[in-house]
């Protein structure tokens, strides 16, 4: 049985890295993380956004990928709709932000499920952010992909109007 678990661990790591862009591929996630922790070796390990989490950028501000350096709001874990501070890791040549810049972002898609007040849940396949300024307005002019209703209560109205699909 120990041999079986060892040989499956690399596969687990590969699938986790592919699905999550999360730096914690180990089968023992944080205590507050998703319900998949029961059968972790053969299921996805979806966890919160935290420091060093790589996220996609869902707008046309120029950045392609960012790495979270701080979750704002005093917690260690970032969920859907939270503000984070991130460092741009990958950017297109002529964009509004450059590689290495420190930017504020709001998480618009999270792999970790987020519960709603009526008992429903929503979750996305990948983590994604929209880069915003200090006032909460997006720097880019277009937003790609679906965006959840949770942003409404956080007063990111501009993002909701720019998005092509609000779920």
């Amino acid at each position: 049985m120990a041999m079986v678990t060892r040989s499956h661990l690399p596969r687990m790591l590969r699938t986790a890295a592919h699905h999550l862009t999360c730096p914690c591929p180990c089968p023992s996630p944080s205590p507050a993380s998703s319900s998949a922790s029961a059968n972790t070796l053969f299921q996805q390990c979806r966890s919160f956004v935290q420091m060093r989490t790589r996220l996609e950028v869902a707008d046309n501000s120029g950045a392609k990928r960012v790495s979270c350096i701080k979750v704002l709001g005093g917690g260690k874990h970032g969920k859907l709709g939270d503000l984070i501070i991130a460092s741009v890791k990958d950017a297109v040549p002529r964009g509004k932000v450059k590689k290495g810049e420190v930017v504020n972002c709001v998480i618009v898609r999270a792999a970790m499920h987020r519960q709603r007040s009526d008992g429903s849940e929503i979750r996305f396949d990948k983590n994604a952010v929209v880069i915003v300024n200090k006032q909460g307005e997006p720097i880019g002019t277009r937003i790609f992909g679906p965006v959840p209703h949770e942003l409404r209560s956080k007063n990111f109205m501009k993002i909701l109007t720019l998005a092509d699909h609000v779920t």
Partner: protein
Amino acid sequence: MASTCIRQMATLSLKSRVVAAPKGLKVVGLSSPSFTPAVTPSLKQACEPLRSTFQVASKTSVNGRRDKFTVFAQAVTTTPETEAEADTTAEATVPETSDDAPAPAVKSKKLTTRVKHIMEILNKDAVEAANAEKVIPDIRPGDVIQLRIEVPENKRRVSLLRGIVISRRNAGINTTFRIRRVIAGVGVEMVFPLYSPNIKEIKVVDKRKVRRAKLFYLRDKIARMSSC
């Protein structure tokens, strides 16, 4: 055998006066029909020599107080011990006479009137009440469904959601189902309680042939498999 039988019958007739509810009490929940016809033949068969004396008693005790075997979800006037005793006597004799009893030919999960089954019974009532309000179709994994839903974060505007059901988790009133859809290149999964009042309408648009109860493998597949 006879002495125990007499004692059982005595306790049954005594307890029936204590256990049975007054007519004014509202009866909620199920009455298990399998009990009532089974009791009379059991009384007959269990004590042959005392049949004449107890037939009369049993008739009044059963017909007059049929409420004995219905469930009171609100006011439990009976103590668990008396209910348990009445149940054990009925249960002990029911298997003997299962072939004799004419009505209950179907083997079903009998919810006894014990207090420990209260949650099950309440759950069943809640499900029945939800079903009475609106028609909820049978949703299975592999169905492509369309939901009209009031999202609370959306200021109560009814939105349309579509997706393939990838799992259904049965838990009485907390039955939930999970929908998956690829929207604008991104896979989105949503979980909804089946009996949620926010769901205004569920319509099954398509059925796909699947050989699983949980279609979580769709997460690893190409986007076209989850798009609908």
